[in-house]
């Protein structure tokens, strides 16, 4: 339950962040979406034993964090929340693969290497998705989807779902608050109240959702969200996309850290 309320406040934090006005925020939403997709594809395309080669990809999130003036701590917290899940799957690797490999003179199990690789990939991909929304926001993201010719009805569906998630979680948290105030001695919900709770929430949200939708209709809504001016693609946007893509591709083809490292160790 606190889970749910946490995620609501996380969503709202991202909403707030998306309203900042930095150079990253002003990049066209479609470009940011495409850049993210390229990034994800490249990161994921690394084979399962790769660790070192993945490291340069951390530049992308770090630069976005810095340029978009995003707070590091709360977003890191969100990312860490996902990790246990990945660990849950990745942790099986060391169990199944005991074969050893020499790495920097130390023998380690290959299972651990793949595990680490998954962990890094996961952190990078999750961060990239979250940064996308934290610098774009749901409304502008929807504009990007529309430009990709995703049908109106689906985009609307996403926006409404997004909107109703707050309505619903709010409804839940209010009910829980009211409950705990009138059941002071109890910890959590009594199981017998669960059924009526879930049903109530559903019905209340039905009714509320209908009213919200009506309110939208009453204000001339016809299925298309207009979100003010979204500028056309500019040269800056294209340059942004090109620069990042170039970087990703080079970092994919050449193992930059090894390159730096051997230069360095060679020099020494």
């Amino acid at each position: 339950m606190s889970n749910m309320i946490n995620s609501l406040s996380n969503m709202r934090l991202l909403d707030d962040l998306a309203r900042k006005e930095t150079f990253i925020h002003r990049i066209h939403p479609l470009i940011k979406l495409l850049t993210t997709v390229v990034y994800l594809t490249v990161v994921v395309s690394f084979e399962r034993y790769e660790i070192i080669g993945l490291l340069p990809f951390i530049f992308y999130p770090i630069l976005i964090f810095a340029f978009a003036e995003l707070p590091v701590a709360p977003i890191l917290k969100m990312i860490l929340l996902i990790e246990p899940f990945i660990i849950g799957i990745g942790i099986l690797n060391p169990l199944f693969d005991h074969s050893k490999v020499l790495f920097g003179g130390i023998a380690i199990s290959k299972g651990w290497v793949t595990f680490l690789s998954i962990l890094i990939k996961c952190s990078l991909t999750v961060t990239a998705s979250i940064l996308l929304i934290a610098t774009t926001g749901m409304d502008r993201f929807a504009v990007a989807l529309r430009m990709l010719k995703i049908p109106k009805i689906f985009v609307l569906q996403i926006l409404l779902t997004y909107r109703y998630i707050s309505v619903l979680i709010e409804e839940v948290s209010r009910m829980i608050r009211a409950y705990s105030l009138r059941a002071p001695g109890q910890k959590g919900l009594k199981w017998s109240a669960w059924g009526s709770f879930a049903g109530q929430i559903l019905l209340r949200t039905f009714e509320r959702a209908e009213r919200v939708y009506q309110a939208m209709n009453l204000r001339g809504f016809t299925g298309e969200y207009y979100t003010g001016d979204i500028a056309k693609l500019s040269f800056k946007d294209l340059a942004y996309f090109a620069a990042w893509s170039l970087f990703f591709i080079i970092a994919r083809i050449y193992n930059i850290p090894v390159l730096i490292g051997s230069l360095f160790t060679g020099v020494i």
Partner: protein
Amino acid sequence: MMHMADALISPAVGGTMLATTAGVAAYSIKKLQNELDEKKIPLMGVMGAFVFAAQMINFSIPGTGSSGHLGGGMLLAILLGPYAGFLTMASILLIQALFFGDGGLLAFGCNVFNLGFYTCFIAYPFIYKWFTRKGITSKRIFAGSMASALVALQLGAFSVVLETLLSGKTELPFEKFVLLMQPIHLAIGIVEGLVTAAIITFVWRARPDILEKAANEEAFGNISMKKVLTALSIAVVVVGGLFSWFASANPDGLEWSIEKTAGTAELEAPDGIHETLSEIQSKTALLPDYDFKASENEKTAGQAENAWPAVNAGTSVSGIVGGALTLALAVFTGWVIMLIKRRKIKTTA
């Protein structure tokens, strides 16, 4: 129900599934546009939000020590009908991928398919509908929800196994993974069935109009269903075949496509750079054993020990040193930018 993560799939699998899902979604949208009424739009949104919230409640599965959460696909299918249900599932998963990195943009297709397709297009029409074909009673709701949830989750779980293995990112042997996933999802399926039945019964009592509307949606002729399925399997075979062809010819489909694009006129430069660089590389041997050939090893990585990309003490050391430097540089850059920005804010303020 388990979500696939970006980190666990290969671009080939992710791409195939994304294409497949897009096909099903497009079909659903077309179907839906013909019969969409006013009340359905908010209802889809609400149910999406409801399932979204429900997926956040984790429950422990007795006897296994692991935990799971609801998929909600059956609930959506029954309350909204298959097309709207599928689309709603897709929007839930997209929001989760964006805001929580749960699942992911690349794994989006896999997740929608695993959670949405089997429930809305297999379990709902063939199982749930069969149970309730003679009208709705609470017993039939129960039996139908239970049976369809169980089947849908088993299919979904198996699908997760296949996608993971095809992606080759984990070490899990097939049988062990199957033996792990299927029983867990049996347990989750039971809970899912119970919850679905309870909620459907509740809604049926309180707002029978909602259920009737979904059930009466007659668009679901068997012929069209068959068409979808054939089209779908052809698509899977074709797309999957294509992807896996170039994936095996060139394990990283990306590099293949990069070379392709690099060959075209606009992007001539990278190709040149690439060639000169690899020349330099082979001459200076700065990058021992790390070139395209290494990836050939990957193809057989699962089977042979020598598949391990050659690692010797030299590269490892330079790798570790280089890695540390890269990280330090990245963090330093970020820090400097932040400092400069902060200074700017101060001076302007």
